[in-house]
């Protein structure tokens, strides 16, 4: 009698199945794979929402009224190429540093007046990453990206790809955990056996190793770390690694090859892949090539500008990030998805930063961390051209919002990352129960 038979006979098998219901449920959901994609885009360092998604008119909020309003747009301090006024993006206004994104407002909506309840980078970042308020600085639960991947299924060689963005998997199937890379060109190395170098392993050796690895390895390991859950996770990773190198997808990530000339041209990649455009191209190729369902990338880095470099560095860093996002949206809009429709019609995009920056310049002509924040949702399942929530005209504090309408209401609630993350998952038709929050219905298509 083997173990399974024994469990059946003693009735413990049913108990074990009951105890494992959560995982079984997730696996069952994963089995019903959906034709949907996700991009989670991060602006690292805390973005200046006055320059980006939540502008103010400097003719109303003047230097003379700063002490009264606590709001100092500071547009006149930016490099000369930037507008001195908010940009009319059609249905709403945006800050002077949104670049090409201003022309794509029909595809995205903005959530303003988000209450982050933290001024700490790690906390704010992990709050948005997981859709749950961290415990101290520790993330609580799995990443929203991981939750999405778990439900979308394991039908891609690398279901979840992350470039320099942290992700968490504490309660989801192993396949939903991110494959994290620190450099764009490392992806092609991951996808090629022996980094694409000529292999000196004879076929008979490969064949013998294949047979060796296919055997039940558990029988060989009679003790030691190989018998632990970590050992089994490594065995699983090793098996997945062998599948990945046979996927033949590496050619989609050789960005210097002639085959990808059009990609380089669209994203304006001039050889530097470690740039916002390089990361946007990586995200696009990962989804379009069939490598991944979910991609997490940092569109902008180095935005934590407390000092005088704010005017030059923050503005250009922010614009580069928004331009990269805009190119990605346009690319997905113009690319046909497998099974028909555009890639954008099947891709939900959530863009966030850990918090905003103080609306009033500090004594060093920079901006510090601000409790208020904003976010951007785009693509599949999201109504474009809308604004939900509001920051106040007094120091841009988050205003209460009626969730049903998305408009300010004294009887409303304070918007948090939970609402945004729940909206993103629900836009894709996914279960967001783990986040224990409500979506923003006015943004759901």
């Amino acid at each position, binding site marked *: 009698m083997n*173990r399974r038979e024994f469990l059946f006979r003693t009735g413990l098998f049913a108990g074990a199945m009951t105890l494992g219901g959560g995982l079984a449920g997730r696996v069952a959901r994963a089995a019903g794979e959906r034709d949907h994609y996700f991009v989670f885009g991060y602006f690292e360092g805390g973005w200046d929402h006055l320059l980006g998604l939540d502008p103010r008119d400097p003719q109303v909020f003047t230097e003379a009224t700063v002490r009264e309003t606590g709001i100092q747009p500071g547009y006149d301090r930016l490099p000369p190429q930037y507008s001195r006024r908010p940009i009319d993006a059609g249905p709403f206004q945006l800050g002077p540093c949104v670049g090409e994104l201003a022309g794509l407002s029909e595809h995205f909506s903005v959530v303003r007046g988000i209450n982050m309840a933290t001024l700490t980078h790690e906390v704010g970042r992990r709050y948005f990453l997981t859709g749950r308020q961290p415990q101290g600085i520790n993330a609580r639960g799995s990443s929203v990206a991981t939750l999405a991947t778990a439900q979308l299924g394991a039908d891609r060689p690398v279901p979840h790809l992350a470039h320099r963005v*942290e992700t*968490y998997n504490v309660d989801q199937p192993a396949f939903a955990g991110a494959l*994290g890379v*620190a450099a764009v060109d490392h992806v092609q190395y*991951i996808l090629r056996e022996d980094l694409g170098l000529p292999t000196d392993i004879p076929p008979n050796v490969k064949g013998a190793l294949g047979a060796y690895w296919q055997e039940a390895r558990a029988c060989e390991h009679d003790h030691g770390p190989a*018998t632990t859950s*970590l050992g089994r996770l490594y065995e699983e990773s090793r098996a997945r690694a062998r599948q990945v190198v046979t996927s033949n997808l590496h050619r989609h990530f050789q960005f210097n090859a002639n085959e990808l000339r059009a990609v380089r041209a669209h994203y304006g990649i001039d050889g530097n892949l470690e740039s916002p455009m390089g990361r946007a191209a990586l995200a696009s190729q990962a989804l379009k090539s069939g490598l991944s369902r979910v991609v997490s990338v940092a569109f902008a880095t180095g935005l934590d500008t407390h000092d005088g470099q704010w005017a030059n560095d923050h503005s250009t860093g922010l614009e580069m990030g928004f331009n990269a996002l805009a190119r990605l949206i346009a690319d997905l809009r113009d690319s046909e998805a497998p099974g028909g429709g555009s890639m954008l019609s099947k891709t939900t995009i959530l863009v966030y930063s850990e918090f905003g920056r103080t609306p009033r310049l500090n004594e060093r002509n920079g901006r510090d961390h601000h409790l208020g924040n904003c976010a951007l949702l785009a693509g599949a399942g999201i109504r474009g051209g809308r604004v939900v929530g509001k920051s106040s005209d007094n120091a841009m504090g988050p205003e209460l919002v009626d969730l049903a309408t998305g408009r300010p209401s004294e009887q409303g609630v304070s918007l948090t990352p939970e609402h945004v993350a729940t909206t993103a998952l629900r836009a894709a038709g996914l279960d967001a129960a783990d986040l224990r929050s409500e979506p923003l219905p006015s943004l759901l298509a």
Partner: protein
Amino acid sequence: MSALSKIVLALAVVSLGAGCDDGGGPGGNGDTPPTPDAAAGGAGGAGGMGGGEPPHPDMGVAEQGLSRTAGRMTIEQLARSIPVVTGGLRWTEDFGQGPVDMLEVLAPTLGAPDYLLVTEENLEPSIIVAKFLQDASHRICVRWIAEDRQKPQGERTFVRHADWESRDPADVDATLRALKLRFFARKVTDDESIRPLRELFVNASSTAAPGNGARDGWLAVCIALMTDPEFILY
């Protein structure tokens, strides 16, 4: 709890820890392994920016058969271990500008901290670690076997206990035992512990081109040992 219930429960516990027909070795529970908290960082370490507070590998609740929680080598530990095992070889490649140490090049993607954005190493045995360790084993083992084959017996680090080309079962077994000790610091005396590797050696060597039987057999064994969980976990 009745006496019968206690007996049933005790038998169930014994049964859960027995056999390996469905994936669980002694000490394993046989069910789908949960993703360990140490893996919670995901990309948080592997290219991420820290990633929570994974438990220290020397802390936490030990799994059965170990006095502490199993952990994965850091990339630095791995980089230092490989030369010790192989007699000085490192994973280097030359892309036209001189040899570079690949574990250094790939360290950020493999989850090593850069102390700018990443301050804590991700010690998840991730797909990336598994993939690049496999690449490393291919590149290093080919060199190691080729060099070892050319050396006199006293200078060898791979086939130390026999005529290099010998495929005599007793010689093969002696080398396999020595290699287990070399790679895993584990002295094995029983036959069962080396049986799968012996079968691998025989399989690879018996299908090799003429004159390359021992070379292919040992190459396969080398790759199998370097990619074994017992090598990178401790």
